[in-house]
């Protein structure tokens, strides 16, 4: 099958590669670029384990062709932490036991990262609704919700302190 030239930025790094038109973004990330944080958990876009941030939106990378991502700026779990250490969400997931087997965690945190930009000070209900595209089989979500609310509080406090 003929291949297309794809240019994407992944976690701040420009990447050029050739991919088949049918190739999914998740496979390009995981198999060509070695970005294995996002996972594949279903075939039908239900589980959200493959969630990445594409041009400022949460997308399920199993439902995006690499060709559609041409020119896009993509952030995965690997790109959330900065040079100063972990992202607050990563810290809070650990602090509040928001993960067990860890398989959903990269997608979960990447989605929460975008959610907290969409709604910086969410209610518990908004978190539960905003995270409903990401399935977890281990935690029952209670501690995930707690972790996200704690991260929001911390981020807001930091923002206030900076002002």
């Amino acid at each position, binding site marked *: 099958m003929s291949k297309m030239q794809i240019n994407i930025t992944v976690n701040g790094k420009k990447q050029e590669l050739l991919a088949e038109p049918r190739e999914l973004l998740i496979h390009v990330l995981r198999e060509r670029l070695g970005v*294995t944080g996002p996972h594949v958990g*279903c075939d039908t876009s239900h589980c959200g384990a493959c969630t990445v941030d594409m041009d400022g939106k949460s997308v399920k990378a199993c439902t995006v062709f690499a060709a559609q991502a041409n020119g896009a700026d993509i952030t995965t779990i690997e790109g959330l932490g900065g040079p100063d250490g972990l992202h607050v969400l990563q810290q809070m997931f*650990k602090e509040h*036991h928001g993960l067990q087997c*860890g*398989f959903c965690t990269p997608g979960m945190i990447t989605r929460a990262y975008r959610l907290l930009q969409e709604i910086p000070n969410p209610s518990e209900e908004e978190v539960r609704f905003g995270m409903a595209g990401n*399935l977890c089989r281990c935690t*029952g979500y209670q501690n995930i919700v707690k972790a996200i609310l704690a991260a929001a509080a911390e981020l807001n406090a930091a923002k206030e302190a900076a002002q």
Partner: protein
Amino acid sequence: MNEMTPPKTERAAALKGLGSARKRVEDARFTQGKGNYVDDLKMPGMLFGDFVRSPYAHARIKSINADKAKAIPGVVAVLTADDLRPLNLHWMPTLAGDKQMVLADGKVLFQGQEVAFVVAEDRYVAADAVELVEVDYEELPVVVDPFKAQASDAPVLREDLEGNMEGAHGPRRHHNHIFTWEQGDKDATEAVVGSADVVAEEMVYYHRTHPCPLETCGCVASMDKVNGKLTVWGTFQAPHAVRTVASLISGIAEHNIRIISPDIGGGFGNKVGVYPGYICSIVASIVTGVPVKWVEDRMENLMATAFARDYWMQGKIAATKDGRITGLWCHVTADHGAFDACADPTKFPAGFFNICTGSYDIPTAYLAVDGVYTNKAPGGVAYRCSFRVTEAAYFIERMIEILALKLDMDPAELRAKNFIRKEQFPYQSALGWEYDSGDYQTAWDKALKAVDYEGLRREQAERVDAFKRGETRKLIGIGLTHFTEIVGAGPVKNCDILGLGMFDSCEIRIHPTGSAIARLGTISQGQGHATTFAQILASEIGIPADDITVEEGDTDTAPYGLGTYGSRSTPVAGAATAMAGRKIRAKAQMIAAYLLEVHDDDVEWDVDRFVVKGAPQRFKTMKEIAFASYNQAIPGVEPGLEAVSYYDPPNMTYPFGAYVCVMEVDVDTGEADIRKFYALDDCGTRINPMIIEGQVHGGLTEALAIAMGQEIAYDELGNVKTGTLMDFFVPTSWETPYYTTDHTVTPSPHHPIGAKGVGESPNVGGVPAFSNAVHDAFRTFGLTHTHMPHDHWRIWKIAHDLGLHG
């Protein structure tokens, strides 16, 4: 104590041992996307395997033509049963003593069955090739109903067993019959039931469902032809058992096989069994000489690997007029699908279903289970429960509710009246178990008080009145459960899988500078073993948990063990960990005494050190002892500080709990809102309360799924109707309620640290709590029993059938 010694409590806290809500050491890698799951593995030259699967539930295979598939560039091989036959690998043994086709041998017996294995350079090419393999099928009559399967004229499903009327678990009485398993006293129970004041009778069906961990099953097999070693990385809940079984069926010597379970993305029983994908990957790697990866997709996972439950439980419960239970009779028709691939200890073809007398002192009981073949996927795994325990708990907790209705007695009161009392432990049940410890009444009283049970009943009655007056369309259901689990298989004398005794193990090495590594025969799939086993050790050997590495899952380095399922890690491997720690401490005592120039008996243990009795200022810390053990010549003592323990538990452990679910049911839409869920668990000694609470939240959510919508449903032709996450219900954060957790502590008297295991209790107790709440909402309108799952449509149908829609 000299001035430099911090107080006992401070030193104990610094260890982060038993009881500490220690943060998990696993989380650093998982939160940064640095987990190492099987599909993350990439090796030079690695090929991808993919299955051609049967679209039919029962059909004869007339021919398979793979020419077109093989013609695609990048396709390396297409394996069929004919290729595996010369190796005698076209069939494989199941964990239940049956055998299963690896690739369809002449016919297919369930939809999704493995027919051919395509090996290609890339997963897309493999998928293309799967589409091009031409299989000519001749459809055969399909049997999906386990009762119809036993009719005299039912089609013969397992032609390979035709004429063989002696199965792995005794005589077979029909060509689709697998076994009959009986426990208890039949005559006495029938006499009690026949003459009782009151008998409640019901068919309680626990539907077929699936563990559905977020990561599906998969492996990478790599045969190194240079040194003759086979390495398989895979989603294995029991890596050592896989190694032994692989050796037995392949003929490769066991020392030449290395099984590695990397990070596992949830198991819940799904990853206990041996699946055709593993065998095919191994064969393909042997044939091609390069690593072969096979990872199933979600549809394959739900259709082909490891269903759970599917038990039809006919029950009779007998009682006196005032509610004293006198007998329990149960007959189960167990639908095992096309091959008996249940993951149960050999002597227990229906698992520990004979825990079905539950938390109650029932003097007389009888149980018979008939296993039956149908045209459905094989499995019968313990989905987040000890073997068939969740079926048993659901059965007794429904029967109690039905009996309460019949007696017109409050179900909380009926339970309390029949609890096994604290002073009766150790308690011999009528169906053969010795319950180790329990204090059911205390837990029950605490639970009822916490939810204000009487207040809830008043509110419920007021709501019924308001409903009758036409002021509301919502009813309140109060779902009660008091469950008793049986976990920690198990004593080797009666528990083995394929002849492998179900002990477990821990090996500890203390490093000269006083840190340590511990390796176990179990494997975490999210339970946090690296965190909690270090805590057990910290309390035993006085080395901070933060200084102890815990490793599992590599059969070349870990001691032999039977793996993680059935809540057995803490009861068995956790006990081995404590015992190995005690061996370390015993040697450390000799070393300390030598260093302190006193007799061994003159020193005593003090949190993290040995002190001279009566002279607390004279001591040696574990750190000092560790260094001396390697570097100081001590007469009569070998250098080094290591220990290994293989632990064969004397009994199972019996965790229990009291759950209350309060639900608002909309009569017109069938929606059910969980208003409150209170879960009290008693898992004995609590190692890490944070992790216990997390386990309870997760198990309850799986229970919510099962009770309220999750099922593997088939149509009459054997088509799977719920083969994707579109149809197979997995709750999101939106549907999942908030849980209130609580506990009592009744230690196990026979476990070295008194722990009982907790991971599966919430699933075992949760399902009846949710289901009883649905039933309870309609109890005053005449509902006795209805089958799960209670999705919106089924709840609507209950209301409709009761005439509540006017």
